[in-house]
């Protein structure tokens, strides 16, 4: 049972050895930065945004650690990370005079030194909910407290910037998992990459192509137009099942073609669920596809019990998060210059540990940004402190940065969206620019 972990540690060490190459791959000096229009004119490759949602509530205080605050150890007697240790012992990885990383995140250090990695601290929602599912919905719809908003923020971005002639690549956006995260759901068709398909898939797609009105050789096209396939001649709305089926066929054909012609990666990823997803995304990018937005979920951050300190669940998960993102950027090579990886989580957890060496649902959380365009080597967001007077409702890390500030900045500064329409983030008042990108 413990073998994978051992291998994993080995992998991490070998990553650290490759630090130098990663920094090189990310490239100095200043990375490409561009607005969409210049992009179109120059025919340059588009910016890429990879969003990783850590579901369950990543424990912010054991992620970016206020290691100098006296309350840190006091509030977390069994799960705090030691600041000092003997030779070879793992301790807080100090980033600044007051804040440091969980040692499981060591693979971020080379990126931090190369100024291509930045945490945003005490970031979260203005809405007080401690429900996972509401908090996730609110964050992915970028509409805290508004249950009527049903489209994801990334889907809204894609719809807003869609090619007017419908010439977008079918793989302009994708989720590397069987179902879409809510951030990608909405009117713009996005592909969720199905798993476990075999060599016969192509044949199956051809069979169902006509039934679902996908562009097809021969009869199918005539047929689907004749039957008013696409939009219906009277403008009747298309059956959503048929619409989803058509996108499935078109996107999956393209995806399989890319898979066939793209060689396997030479970069070694740590083993685990996130790694395999990022590896899949990297392959699409390496194939030269005009991918702009990709998502991957990792559920399992809800550590109510036995969260662990230097060892244990959270440590292993942190090792994979940092290790796989590091490997991913390395895998992308030159393309890492136009790629931003953004991690988010629905909320942080209680600052005090609970009765079972775990933590309960809290408020302020953490986001990570990594990649070429990131102005890294700096911690963003105001740290509110964890002394009892500063805590939100006396128990949680306060929120000092609205998560939409980060989203807005990523869309404007990285994705090249010139102006964010008024209702894009409903009921949102932009905060001060963070300068992340």
């Amino acid at each position, binding site marked *: 049972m413990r073998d994978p972990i051992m291998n994993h540690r080995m992998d991490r060490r070998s990553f650290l050895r490759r630090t130098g190459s990663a920094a090189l791959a990310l490239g100095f000096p200043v990375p490409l930065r561009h607005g969409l229009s210049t992009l179109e004119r120059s025919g340059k490759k588009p910016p890429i945004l990879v969003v990783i949602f850590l579901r369950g509530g990543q424990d912010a205080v054991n992620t970016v650690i206020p290691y100098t605050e006296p309350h840190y150890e006091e509030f977390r007697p069994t799960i705090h990370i030691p600041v000092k240790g003997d030779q070879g012992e793992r301790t807080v990885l100090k980033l600044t005079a007051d804040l440091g990383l969980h040692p499981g995140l060591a693979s971020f250090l080379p990126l931090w030194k190369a100024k291509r990695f930045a945490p945003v601290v005490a970031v979260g929602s203005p809405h007080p909910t401690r429900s996972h599912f509401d908090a996730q919905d609110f964050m992915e719809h970028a509409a805290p407290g508004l249950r009527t908003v049903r489209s994801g923020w990334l889907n809204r971005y894609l719809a807003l910037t869609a090619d007017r002639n419908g010439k977008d690549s079918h793989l302009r956006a994708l989720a590397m998992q069987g*179902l879409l995260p809510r951030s990608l759901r909405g009117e713009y068709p996005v592909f969720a990459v199905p798993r476990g398909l075999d060599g016969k898939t192509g044949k199956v797609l051809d069979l169902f192509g006509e039934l679902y009105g996908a562009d097809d050789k021969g009869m199918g096209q005539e047929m689907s137009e004749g039957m008013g396939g696409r939009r219906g001649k009277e403008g009747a709305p298309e059956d959503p099942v048929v619409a989803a089926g058509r996108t499935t066929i078109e*996107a999956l054909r393209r995806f399989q073609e890319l898979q066939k012609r793209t060689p396997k990666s030479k970069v070694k990823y740590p083993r685990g669920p996130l790694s395999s997803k990022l590896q899949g995304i990297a392959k699409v990018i390496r194939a030269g596809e005009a991918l702009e937005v990709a998502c991957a979920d990792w559920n399992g951050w809800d550590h*109510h019990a036995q969260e662990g300190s230097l060892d244990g669940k959270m440590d292993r998960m942190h090792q994979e998060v940092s290790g796989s993102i590091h490997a991913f950027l390395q895998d992308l090579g030159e393309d890492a210059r136009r790629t931003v990886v953004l991690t988010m989580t629905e909320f942080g957890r209680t600052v005090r540990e609970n009765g079972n060496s775990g933590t309960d649902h809290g408020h302020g959380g953490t986001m990570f940004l990594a990649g070429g365009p990131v102005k890294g080597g700096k911690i963003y967001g105001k740290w509110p402190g964890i002394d009892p007077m500063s805590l939100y409702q006396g128990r949680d890390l306060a929120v000092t940065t609205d998560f939409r500030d980060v989203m807005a900045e990523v869309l404007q500064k990285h994705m090249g969206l010139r102006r964010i329409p008024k209702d894009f983030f409903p009921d949102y008042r932009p905060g001060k620019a963070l300068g992340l990108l």
Partner: protein
Amino acid sequence: MERRLLLFCVLVIATATSSLDSQGTKRKQGTHVLELSETQKIRHVLSRFAFGPTPGLVERVRRQGLDAWFEDQLNQKGKSPKILQDRLADLDTWGRSAGDILLELQRVREDIGPDPKQKDRARLNRARNLSRNQLKDAVLFQAIYSGNQVIETATDFFRNHFNVSVNKGSVRYYATEYERDVLRKGALGNFAWLLEHSAKSPAMLFYLDNYLSRRPPSKQELKGIGRRVRRKTKSKKRAEEEVEIAKQRGLNENYGRELLELHTLGVDHYYRQKDVIEVAKALTGWTIHRDRKKNTISFSFRPDMHIQGAKTFLGKVIPENKKNPIREGEMVLERLVRHKGTAHFLAWKLCRWFINDNPSESCVQRIAKVFQKTRGDMKAVFRAIYHDSEFWSPENFQAKFKRPFEFVVSALRVTGAEVRSTRALHRALALLSEPIYECEDPTGYYDQAEAWNDPGVLAVRWSFAMKLATNKIPGVRIPDSFYADLHPSIPQVWKDQLARKMLPAGIGEKTDAILDDIIKKVVKKYKGGKVGRRRKPLKKVLAPLLVGLLLGSPEFQKQ
């Protein structure tokens, strides 16, 4: 000449069948249908209160009368085929208690000894997975074959409402009892009973951590712990460490929160964070006890873990009950069952599940009223849904997108498939993102189209459909009898016959035209000798293909 004759035959039969169709299902083009026909009504009920029809079921229900059939179902008077008994009899852990399941595992462990070899590890893993895998099989077999489909769909609802996941710790050993003795027993019983027994089930106590939740230990207890550890380990340092750890033990609000948010009131309805903590306090001491002598694992109340004092919950005091502190938690549950918020939340969820994704508020209120009046008598609630005008509204006929579980089970049922091995079916469910008993989130699997109809997922359904239809799923076979009543020679008629069997709302115009087209192509290839390697009869080549296409069609994705 021959061709013209064939075309003529097709025309004649097509008109004959389509008139049959219009008699049977009253499908009118372009006009607003005000009421479902009798056949549609039967098919509608079999789509919602059953995992679709099996061959011949629509006729049997028609003969009995739909209302009488439904009432029999509520009283579990349906007859299951022998295959179900046979399959369940093979699952030896399905009838066992959690205690016995763990005892068996312990025996294997002891047999292997402290130094396991490679093959022993495999054996141990098999032993660890045995009851979990058989539980999944028990759920699947009963959904496919049970003659009591109403309780199957009701259990399916509550399995997701009171979700636990076998991927968390020991839940896998407790879940068999949970499914059998809590969910199945309560699904057509009483909600108050279900709530209490889920709260007291080892599966739920473990899954949402309540078994750990307790008051912080007293100074005296800490001293006792220190002494014990020191005596045992002879180390002062270890003893101090253990005391430090023990000091931190205390309240865990995980179950308290989900009890309010997911099991009763609905998120942020009527309650606040303070209530979550008070509920968690009232439920301290509700834990799991393993009695090794009697070999049982069961709920137990530990007074020493309970947080004393009165609790204030939803603005009312729950007085301290020194004599019988377990009553405090029970009072919380009872108050929740009586609360109008619970009635509304449950009614809303049930209407979404059984009627449509967006039920009207008036419909929800009608069902909530019954729920509240009968104190959660689930038979009365399901009866109310069945008799509600909104349930019978033609707009709701075939209006729900099937969840993967519903898709797979209804495909197996409609084709009368014989299932001997389930491995490939569980794999298909996993690929479709709905493996049985593996929803990690306490929400359970959602059942709205929004949660399942993403571009991409249909490819997995199509692949499953084609494999099922061509008998390429190991251990699963569509019997020849399924094709026995097909017309002797005319392919277009096969299509009409199969569509009538398989699609409750009949075949759509577009699907119909495309299938005709595919039939023409296959017939041409067949005549040219390009398909049917060993010169199988055309029917053997074409009919399974049609079944696969129908299972993968847009029409079959709905119920």
